């Protein structure tokens, strides 16, 4: 049947499994940015760090034939770009919003330059994890236990960040720096060092998220392939009201919407592809509105010093 929708072709198990894959890149980027913002820094360059990670990871994986080395290169690429941001905003006192934008503009160009000659190339395959009999459990097996390792790594990072921020001493110092950098400085904490470390971690996570796109999800290199994922990750941090588990929830909800939209496209829904493809961006805007308004308003949970420059006068 041409032009009509065949809903019976949609398999909920496949959908749920695809959801985790769709969510992982923005989850990685968002959890990194969450730590950065918890330290009181707003880095709007997530898109630039992701796309840089996507190409450095891709290029390295292709040239070495090893996807894991590629992922390490993506971590280094994302963190490297983030350190430019750290240098500019923490040492040269540049405006964070403008520097974040510069990072994105530069990253998009830089990745396009590095990526020449890589379009149409297939990256080495990342094998899926084998959990033995767990993967054979009906329904749950294919949804939870047959993914590539990075899906589980992203979950471990979320749990680690949650533990770090809540229970570790270093995590509390990071939060103090983000809440009130003057007080933290007066207490003798090294505001800049903490922030530089957080920014580098954010870049590393963003880069890894980008590599997930180019090495596993797509898997291919195309210019500008992140297509706003970095900005959606930034919105996700607001949605999560700076809490790791809520970032996970948000990312998976978002992954569900993306997957559903792609499935509807494949099932031949009558709405033109261009309009369906708007869905992720529109949904993100709607969620931002709901979160920032009225009773659901959680802006109070934003770190107190978010985006404010720190300059120790004494």
């Amino acid at each position, binding site marked *: 049947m041409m032009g009509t929708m065949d809903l019976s072709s949609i398999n909920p198990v496949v959908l749920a499994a695809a959801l985790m894959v769709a969510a992982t890149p923005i989850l990685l980027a968002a959890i990194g940015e969450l730590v950065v913002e918890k330290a009181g820094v707003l880095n709007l360059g997530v898109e630039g760090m992701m796309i840089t990670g996507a190409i450095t990871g891709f290029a390295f994986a292709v040239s070495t034939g090893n996807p894991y080395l590629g992922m390490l290169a993506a971590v280094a690429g994302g963190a490297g770009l983030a350190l430019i941001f750290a240098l500019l905003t923490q040492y040269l*006192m540049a405006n964070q919003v403008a520097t974040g934008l510069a990072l994105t503009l*530069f990253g998009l160009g830089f990745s396009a330059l590095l990526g020449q000659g890589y379009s149409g190339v297939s990256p080495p395959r990342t094998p899926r994890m084998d959990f033995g009999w767990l993967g054979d459990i009906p329904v749950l097996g294919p949804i939870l236990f047959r993914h590539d390792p990075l899906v589980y790594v992203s979950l471990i990072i979320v749990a680690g960040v949650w533990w770090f921020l809540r229970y570790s001493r270093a995590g509390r110092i990071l939060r103090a720096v983000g809440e009130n950098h003057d007080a933290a400085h007066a207490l003798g904490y090294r505001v800049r060092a903490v922030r530089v470390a957080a920014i580098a971690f954010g870049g590393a996570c963003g880069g890894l998220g980008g590599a997930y796109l180019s090495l596993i999800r797509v898997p291919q290199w195309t*210019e500008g392939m992140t297509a706003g994922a970095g900005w*959606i990750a930034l919105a996700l941090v607001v949605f999560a009201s700076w809490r790791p588990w809520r970032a996970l929830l948000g990312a998976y909800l978002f992954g569900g919407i993306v997957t559903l939209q792609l499935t509807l496209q494949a099932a031949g829904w009558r709405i033109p592809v261009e309009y369906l493809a708007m869905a992720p961006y529109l949904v993100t805007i709607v969620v*931002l509105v709901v979160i920032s308004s009225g009773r659901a308003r959680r802006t109070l949970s934003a770190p107190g010093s978010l985006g404010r420059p720190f300059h120790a006068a004494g």
Partner: protein
Amino acid sequence: MLRLERRPQPSRAWVWAAPLLAVVLTMLAGGVLFAALGKDPVAAIRLIFWDPLFSQQFAAFSRPQLLVKAAPLILIAIGLAIGFRAGIWNIGAEGQYIIGALCAAAVAMAFFPSGPTDVRFLGLEFTMDSAPSRWWLFPLMVAAGAAGGFAWAMIPAILKTRFNTNEILVSLLLVYVAEKLLAAAAVGWLRSPEGAGFPGSRNLSRFPEAANLELIPNTGMHWGVVAAIIAVIFGYILLHRHMLGFHVQLAGQAPRAARFAGVAPARLVIFCLGLSGLMAGLAGMFEVAGPARMISIDFNVGYGFVAIIVAFLGRLHPVGILLAGFLMALTYIGGELAQFTLGLPSAAIQVFQGMLLFFLLALDMLSNYRIRLTSREVTP
């Protein structure tokens, strides 16, 4: 040990020296980049910054392009700068530019002569005895472009004032929505019926009443350039000779003081986003009716983003933006030249533009801080 000491007031000398030094440093770093790509750095820099203006071979073609490329950048950047001064970050000008172009093109297509005398509008067909001069069509397109950009910018503005939603994220996310709308228009509702199914709208250059033609032949001077010049004058008067400009500055530098002075934050958000959206929409309108000639999937080339660099490079000052707009236009044109003659990848120019912003932001430190050499001592 080096220590930064905040200046009581930004150094005026450094405010204007920083962009010049940033350009020089970008040329040096760009040269290194071009050398790394295996191109002669001196030849590449010369090709980008000198040849478009002064080479016998290219200047005749390049010089008019300078106005064509600079006009949208300046027009958009003036609007953005007013918002940036007030601390209102519209970074979705690219989307407003697209929507302005779509609205203007839609108006033009509605009146596109389908036969010698038939006019179709809203599905109705009017037959006229003789085609009258539609002098009002171009002004109507200008209005539609401005209204489209304004309306698109009103989305983040109203969400910000009503629901406290972050305007940075919303305006940016709407760029992607606008790009999808553009694609939908190019393959769907604005597709040329004579295009044999290929994406892209009708060619507006074949419709003189709707076309934004060169006003003086071979200069690149079109109505968008006129609009950009008016915008510079308007921006200067607004920011430096008008109470509203003072409020804009005050809101950006001392929000609390601004509130005491009676500046309503919500109205300022609406004004700044609306104005910048309107100007970006106008830029899109002049582009689609002029140099681009039609709506196509790849109609937008990033003017909305590069205008952010132009605004900063021009120190958020209308005259500075005028100069910065020409400089960035030069990198576009020179970049194309370098692409054709040296085989320099087009992405290299994007990197070049990004580096310029990095250097500028880094050097800005010198206008706000003094570097002091101090002996290491225990700070109290």
